């Protein structure tokens, strides 16, 4: 394998820029992988999770795992993540009676191990490598616009041991490498929040909006958010980059916000273009490239984070791009596409260096939550 994460940096950025100018999106990997890459993907309207493998033999479905408890109800598997040790995957199911649930499975065997009832529409989640606790945002997508919570779950017993008051429609949840800070957004409060995973409390809030009564962008306004009309409507926050930046998807104002964790301010605002509506984001391990799904724009955006310039934005093969993950070697971005109505969901693989789509596969309806697994417990 010649692609490697160490290639990122100025040299790679130049390569990416050149590729974006010269190359259309190819349908075939010019240099097929010599190893396997796995993802788990939720099919939200089929109540299934699909384990997929991209490797030397192509893009294949390894397993389809039916999830949920009521087969004639659509319960909506939405968020998914892997434990830092790779031994388990966790799945949030949005709809219950009425509260949603989070479930624990063993990777590989996909054996169900346990569950816990959380709040309304539990969605994105991440596990702290410091505590082993799971932090799940309760999105409460369909409820009144009232502050919601982040649930803290002990994964050994699958018991909710705490709830953290956060804001309206919390979504996106990604941990820093140490596992002592979780980054999430409150969509209808235009906020990025930093959660102290040890204290079970919000450590910092950052208002991203432009409300004139709220002062300039980037000012911390604590819990004033409930009085403001959302503009940014953030839907995602990445893990911190090595440079100490977190990237936030401004789904409402078609922008990507770069937040400096040291100063806790917005250090850059990347304009994605009208109608592109970034939804989920992922960065390469060196922080050189950001990949964004544009939900309304039906495109996948590749950004050079050094220059802040868009490298390429290839059109996806199906409507409503949703989730994105980057492989552990930074070679591939793997993207889920929901589709509409009876269309199947689709998962696409992009070669990050060339921004070319190299493979795709159809899965169950409304492919959404996606997580990368290196295939090793």
């Amino acid at each position, binding site marked *: 394998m010649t692609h490697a994460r160490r290639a990122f940096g100025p040299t790679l950025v130049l390569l990416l820029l050149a590729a974006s100018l010269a190359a259309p999106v190819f349908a075939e990997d010019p240099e097929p992988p010599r190893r396997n890459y796995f993802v788990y993907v939720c099919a939200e309207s089929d109540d299934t999770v699909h384990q997929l493998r991209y490797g030397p033999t192509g893009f294949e479905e390894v397993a389809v795992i039916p999830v949920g408890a009521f087969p004639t109800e659509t319960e909506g598997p939405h968020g998914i993540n892997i434990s830092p*040790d790779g031994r388990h995957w966790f799945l949030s199911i949005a709809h219950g*009676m009425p509260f949603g649930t989070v479930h624990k499975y063993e990777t590989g065997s996909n054996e169900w191990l346990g569950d816990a009832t959380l709040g309304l529409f539990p969605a994105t989640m991440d596990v702290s490598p410091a505590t*082993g606790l799971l932090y799940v945002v309760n999105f409460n997508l369909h409820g009144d616009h009232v502050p919601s919570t982040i649930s803290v779950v002990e994964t050994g017993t699958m018991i909710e*041991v705490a709830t953290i008051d956060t804001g309206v429609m919390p979504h996106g949840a990604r941990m820093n490498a140490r*596992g002592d800070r979780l980054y999430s957004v409150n969509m209808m409060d235009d906020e990025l929040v930093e959660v102290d995973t040890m204290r079970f409390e919000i450590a910092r809030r950052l208002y991203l909006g432009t409300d004139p009564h709220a002062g300039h962008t980037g000012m911390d306004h604590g819990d004033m958010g409930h009085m403001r009309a959302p503009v940014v409507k953030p839907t995602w926050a990445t893990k911190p980059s090595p440079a100490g930046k977190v990237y936030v998807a401004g789904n409402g104002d078609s922008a990507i916000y770069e937040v400096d964790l040291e100063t806790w301010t917005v250090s850059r605002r990347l304009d994605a273009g009208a109608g592109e509506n970034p939804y989920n984001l992922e960065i390469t391990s060196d922080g050189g490239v950001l990949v964004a799904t544009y939900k309304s724009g039906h495109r996948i955006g590749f950004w050079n984070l050094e220059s802040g310039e868009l490298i390429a934005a290839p059109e996806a093969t199906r409507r409503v791009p949703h989730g994105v993950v980057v492989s552990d070697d930074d070679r591939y971005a793997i993207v889920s596409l929901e589709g509409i109505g009876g269309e199947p969901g689709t998962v696409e693989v992009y070669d990050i260096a060339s921004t070319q789509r190299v493979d795709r596969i159809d899965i169950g309806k409304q492919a959404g939550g996606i997580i990368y697994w290196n295939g090793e417990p």
Partner: protein
Amino acid sequence: MLATIGRKGGFGSGPQRMRAVTALVLAGVFVAGAAFAQEPAELVVTPAELTVEVGGAAQLAATVRDAAGNEIERTVLFFSRARRSVGVNPAGMVEGYRPGEHTLVAMVPAEEGATNRRAAAVLMTEIPVTIPFPPLASISIAALPGNLYAGTTLPVATSASDSSGAERNPELSWSSSNASVAMVNEFGMLVLGDAGTATVTASAESVSTEVEVRVADNPAVRLELSAPTGTVEVRTGDVVRMSASAFDVSGNEVPDYPLQYASFTRTPATLVAPGAAAFVEPDGAFVAERAGLHTVVAAGGGLTARHSIRAVPRNVRKDWEIVGRGPVRDRHTSDLWVWEGLDGRDYAVTGTWGADGHAYFWDVTDPSSIHLVDTVRVDARTVNDVKVSPDGKFAVIGREGASNRRNGLVVLDVQNPTDGVKIIARYDDQLTGGVHNVFIAPQHILALSGGRRYDILNAEDPTNPYRVGRFELDTPGHGIHDVWVQDGIAWSSNWTDGVVAVDIGGGGMGGAPNNPVMMGSFKYPNGWNHAGFPYRSQSTGKMLVFAGDENFPWSFEPGGDLPDRAAGWVHIAEWDDEDPGGREVARYQVPEAGTHNLWVEDDILYVGYYNGGLRVVDVSGDLRGDLYQQGREIAFFEPADPEGYKRNAPFVWGPQPFKGHIFLSDWNSGLWAIKLVDPETPRNMGEPTS
């Protein structure tokens, strides 16, 4: 080491203190200082286990040591595995909320700054916490009848509560000052012996209560047991109200005389090994499940009386004929609605499930020639429910799985389906969570939202519906699945909360669409309530609630090859109009199958019984016990289709009787129309063919 510490002033008092502690528990961490280089090897929490009273507090202390035994400074995080029962704050202060055996956890997170992929605290220990039940405060013995007679036996009811006011059910010890007069046996029955006075005492823990029992001589010399006049022969399933009384030597009725009922049966020679053939309930209601000569016995104080009744087979069985079909084989079919259109023709609409948002409109004027007249497709994966307004002018379909997650409902003009069905309105404001079920009261639409509540929309102008009201329960973890309106009362089905009646204009409790007022509910133990159908019996005038379960305890594979199975039954409750609430009196249960949607008309129950097919049941007269066992089932029909979405796998979603036919939607095969016909040969399975 055990430690028990009483209340501490630092926590404040009462609710304020509870809130403060709760907030601290949510913080849930004690940061002891910056990490040192030493690796933590031992976490010692003292005390290692605790006993605290409800409302009491105790202090935990944590020490982290390295492998050499040196104390090191590391973050120690406390949390509770039962935070609603026992809390722990950042300083390790524990407070008891609810009795029981609980567990606290103390952990040392992985070294700060480390990026070890092994997600686990480096040290973790559990601290068992026992919160004993508060001491019992009181035991009460329910009032006994005014007259107690020697030689009789009657049940005695008790209640108990602890010092927190919570109800308890302690094991009681009984004693008597004179056991030859009165005693309570091991089954909780008050056994009265000789005439006289005795004090009966119930004790548990350090609490006791007593009641003085005055036993009079037993004046009864005979019992009389009778059935309503003229009751000689009944059909299986008929409810016979038996009446028993005791009389003294002068022929006067003895008041408060305790009686128990039983029955035995002699079945026809052709009915072998019938099992339980009849039952009689404590109030004297007798029901024969099998044909035969049944004898009811009333007993009390050594006296007995008998009354015999002959029961014959109910003989309600019908055969069915398939009249017509509107097959849907390429996707699942959901609910249906059949109505007479403004043009005088008859139509049906069916929804689709887990597909691409279709609703199908059928001309069913001639049920033997059902044909599709129009198809509406909306942005959805599932159109779970379909309803048509009573005036036949508009229909409402619910959306689930919309691509933008703004589900809501769609209003359709169905004034002339033959010439096309048109979308005239979409409504998703605050209904984005998926509209699983709708109902159209004359001028209002009731629409479920996200399984939590229903909104009430004014639909006087169906092109412009707008919200006027909303109803949502406030019980913990409440959910809702279905709603049906009859005479200004909305009957919703709410899983563990059962069927809930809400006055939205006809309940006499001041309710209106913009002011829904809860009237009462009927809930039952299994918590599977999925559908409810209110019905006033034509034969008895009683208000009944038919409550259907939904559950899937067995494997279910919508995409698999094998037929699927559900579980559950229909619970039938008599509804008290004066004090709104339901009392379950009967059930209809098909073993190894499960119910879905219901319809009741002309004292006949129609059940979409999933893998049990369509079931048609006689629900005339009073109802008690298991209607299936009583031979009340009129017919069952299993719509198998070898070319169905799943082959030969009946899975009936919903039934609707209409103009002499029964229409039903089947998940795997679409729309069916059948009619019931008299059987050429009477068939009562298991009964003699007299």
